[in-house]
């Protein structure tokens, strides 16, 4: 029987549980002996011209090895705009996940202007961490302060420009024409409004960290990254070819999108190691992390939705403005995905979506768990609830009327997304049944009629998202079977908590019968895995896992040739018993060869398969979340009582890992709905730059989650799987959002922007009461 689909607990755990992981700060490699500590001097104002930097006092401090600024970076190659020619604001945008270069380029250290509080201005190298903090405070930077742009509205006025040479704060525009209002003609019910998808912190528990050593012309960098191979390409910016760079991703303490590749500070650390000849280590503080790691979401939406009184939606318009922060790291990629996924799970005959991207004097925005898709789901799911309320229908019924039906797949939406497979209504029905939706509605009605202080809210979100959007880049896998019967599996995918070592070994065991405990999984070292893509976009299992599957099949073909020779039989007559990992001649089970015996016969005592798996199109996981909340109408406090989900990502390889991904995603999504938000004051000073101020969600604010099973395979890859890493986040935010508003809708509240803090909820109730009293 195959091990796939069974509950296998992780092989990664014992080491992490007894000795702790080995993160960048824990490395005790000999190459890092005597490494100096890097501390960054960061901008203390949001927008200013640098008029002078005085390092002298810092240099006189004990333990200071060097204080380096952009002026010291004279040994760098001239940089090319990474995205090639940069389009002007009125030209078609670059839609790849690349930073805009040219006039919008982000320097490694600030040159003559700073654009957000926390932007790195200088790097201080010292013998110890404490010396670094002391010395960095003594680097004196003179600023000529400029007006800070801290909001989307402020950016659009163009009164203060971050990149004056461009003449605008709008760096990218894209999408389709949304001006044709005739699509709403004949709609009985039309609703219009603004929805904020607020800026949140990615907040991996390990912040950014990098150590680097340069010796004999070769740079070795240990980086907390989601993809060592991409990081290696980025590190070529310091003037070395890829083959002179080794990047190692040791244990990585979470990424959530913010560790795709590496950031400018990490390039500076690598450069400093090469420049000074000393090994350098940098581990950011949480304060730095909350100021200067890329953040997520930060979109403002304007929507219009219209349809019939019986619940059929006929037209939907989404106008997105993306706050890119100070540097357009991802060009138009995030809002482009938001546009692509705009109509969600619904068959809407007319869909209009467009976007523009603006720069502001705030931390740069990049991918965060979902990256562009949660924003789409959050808004269409709010819009459907608005529409249902205006039509006087139950939100569950409106969803059922509008779902794309199973027999419509493959289905290309009016936004252009080619959905592969889906059972949207089945997922909804599962959740409604498990929750006993009718009873919950009855309880809600009872509380409303009794005028109870604590009101019940039910929030639905039926979502679809796109995973492995870059399936064409694929993923690599190499399998080696050794003559002692063990196997080594090299993957270009890069685990940072997901459980790849367990999952990928399960696939290899399932195909070959080589037991998991004889399989070593290696990832995240460019010397050992030079070619790889990495872990992001919920791509690991469907691309990396499919690559392992493909390599396993090829290694079996090679083994079969060797086994046939040993049996002196035809290759076609040789069979593998994958339960026992032994080779036989068909019809003669008594005579067998082990993998060790077969490998021993191979060239060099080794059977190898080295593959890349690519997918010709993305996959579209889906599901429904139902959130049940209690709102205290006197204080505005929200209590999340239950969260019930059916998340369908195809056949489940290991329920333990799949549930873990969903749990984490649900919590992060609920956190955006309830409590988390990155805030700046009017001058661009961050107000949430410590965990004492940023309201990261805790165990005390969450219930246990109720997970239901739903498995609809995709034809896109041999495992039939889709991605699950981000789905929980995408479904849970709108479910919780809708639930809270549902709880107080009978009091006249139509909308509350996220995060729905007690203050916001209380204010919304008070204002609704005031309005109704008039």
């Amino acid at each position, binding site marked *: 029987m195959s091990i796939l689909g069974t509950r296998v607990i992780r092989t990664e755990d014992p080491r992490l549980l007894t000795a702790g992981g080995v993160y960048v700060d824990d490395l005790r490699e000999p190459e890092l002996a005597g490494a100096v500590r890097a501390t960054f001097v960061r901008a203390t104002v949001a927008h200013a011209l640098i008029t002078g930097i005085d390092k002298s006092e810092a240099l006189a401090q004990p333990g200071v090895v060097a204080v380096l600024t952009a002026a010291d970076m004279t040994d760098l190659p001239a940089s090319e705009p990474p995205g090639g020619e940069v389009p002007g604001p009125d030209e078609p945008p670059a839609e790849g996940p690349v930073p805009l270069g040219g006039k919008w380029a982000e320097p490694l250290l600030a040159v003559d202007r700073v654009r957000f509080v926390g932007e790195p201005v200088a790097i201080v190298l010292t013998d110890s961490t*404490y010396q670094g903090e002391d010395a960095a405070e003594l680097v004196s930077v003179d600023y000529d302060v400029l007006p800070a742009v801290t909001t989307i509205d402020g950016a659009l006025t163009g009164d203060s420009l971050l990149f004056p040479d461009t003449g605008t704060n709008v760096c990218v525009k894209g999408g389709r024409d949304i001006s044709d209002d005739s699509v709403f003609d004949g709609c009985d019910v039309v609703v219009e409004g603004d929805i904020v998808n607020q800026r949140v912190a990615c907040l991996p528990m390990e912040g950014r960290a990098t150590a680097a050593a340069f010796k004999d012309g070769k740079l070795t960098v240990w980086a907390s990254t989601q993809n060592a191979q991409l990081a290696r390409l980025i590190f070529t910016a310091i003037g070395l070819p890829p083959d002179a760079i080794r990047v190692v991703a040791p244990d990585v303490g979470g990424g959530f999108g913010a560790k795709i590749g590496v950031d400018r500070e990490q390039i500076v650390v690598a450069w400093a190691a090469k420049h000074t000849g000393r090994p350098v280590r940098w581990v950011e503080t949480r304060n730095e992390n909350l100021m200067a790691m890329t953040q997520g979401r930060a979109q403002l939406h304007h929507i219009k939705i219209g349809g019939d009184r019986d619940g059929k939606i006929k037209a939907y318009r989404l106008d997105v403005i993306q706050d890119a922060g100070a540097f357009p790291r991802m060009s138009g990629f995030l809002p482009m995905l938001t546009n692509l996924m705009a109509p969600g799970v619904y068959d809407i005959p007319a869909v209009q979506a467009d976007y523009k991207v603006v720069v502001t004097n705030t931390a740069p925005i990049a991918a965060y768990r979902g990256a562009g898709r949660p924003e789409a789901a959050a808004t269409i799911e709010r819009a459907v609830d608005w529409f249902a309320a205006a039509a006087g229908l139950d939100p569950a019924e409106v969803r059922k009327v509008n779902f794309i039906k199973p027999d419509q797949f493959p289905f290309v939406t009016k936004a252009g997304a080619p959905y592969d497979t889906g059972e949207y209504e089945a997922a909804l029905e599962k959740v409604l049944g498990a929750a006993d939706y009718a009873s919950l509605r009855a309880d809600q009605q009872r509380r409303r009629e009794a005028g109870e202080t604590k009101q019940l809210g039910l929030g639905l979100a039926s979502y679809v998202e796109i995973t492995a959007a870059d399936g064409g880049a694929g993923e690599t896998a190499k399998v080696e079977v050794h003559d002692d019967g063990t196997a080594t599996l090299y993957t270009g995918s890069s685990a940072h908590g997901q459980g790849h070592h367990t999952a990928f070994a399960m696939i290899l065991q399932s195909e070959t019968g080589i037991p998991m405990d004889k399989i070593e999984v290696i990832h995240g070292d460019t010397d050992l895995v030079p070619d790889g893509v990495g872990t992001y976009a919920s791509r690991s299992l469907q691309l990396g896992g499919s690559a392992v599957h493909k390599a396993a099949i090829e290694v079996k073909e090679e083994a079969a040739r060797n086994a046939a020779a040993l049996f002196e039989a035809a290759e076609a007559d040789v069979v593998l018993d994958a339960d026992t990992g032994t080779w036989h001649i068909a019809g003669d089970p008594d005579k067998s060869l082990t993998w060790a015996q077969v490998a021993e016969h191979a060239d060099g005592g080794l059977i190898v398969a080295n593959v890349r798996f690519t997918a010709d199109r993305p996959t579209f996981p889906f599901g429904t979340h139902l959130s049940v909340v209690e709102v205290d109408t006197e204080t505005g406090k929200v209590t999340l009582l239950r969260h019930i989900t059916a998340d369908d990502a195809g056949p489940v390889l290991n329920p333990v890992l799949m549930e873990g991904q969903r749990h984490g995603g649900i919590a992060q999504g609920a956190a955006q709905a309830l409590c988390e938000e990155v805030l700046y004051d009017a001058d661009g000073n961050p107000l949430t730059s410590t965990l004492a101020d940023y309201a990261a969600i805790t*165990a005390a604010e*969450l219930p246990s*989650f109720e997970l239901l099973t739903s498995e609809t395979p995709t034809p896109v890859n041999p495992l039939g799987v889709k991605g699950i890493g981000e789905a929980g986040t995408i479904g849970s935010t709108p479910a919780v959002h809708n639930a809270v508003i549902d709880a107080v809708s009978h009091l006249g509240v139509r909308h509350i922007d996220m995060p729905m803090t007690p203050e916001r909820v209380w204010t919304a109730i008070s204002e609704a009461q005031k309005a109704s009293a008039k």
Partner: protein
Amino acid sequence: MKVELTVNGKEITADVEDRMLLVHFLRDVADLTATNIGCETTSCGACTVLLDGESVKSCTMLAAQADGQSVTTLEGLAADGHMHAVQEAFHQEHGLQCGFCTPGMVMAIVSLLKENPSPTEAEVRTGLEGNICRCTGYHNIVRAALAAAEAGK
């Protein structure tokens, strides 16, 4: 200044800066790197260790304040090659993903169960309010704490 600590049963004497934090003493002087620094503001609990059996956050305590006392870190929990019940429960219940918050979480739960050997789910959740995890949504951490409590009966 000179400090003398017993760390995981081993006496360590060192001359350290007055301002050295306990977590840096553990990581840099005792060379025990399981204890992680997650926030420096006593908010996230990644640095939780036991000081004379009580959980403390070692990022906001001076090594000097721990002088003469006994510290237990994650590395000191397993005995005779067997994981502690809380470690075993984390393994069985998939209570960890990236592993960064795990040492602090495990130590916090060891301390919690010492104070309250049979907690309810709500008591576990309240008890872990000072420990942040970004991977697990806390679901399986809570399961692990309850399973460890059950195993301890």
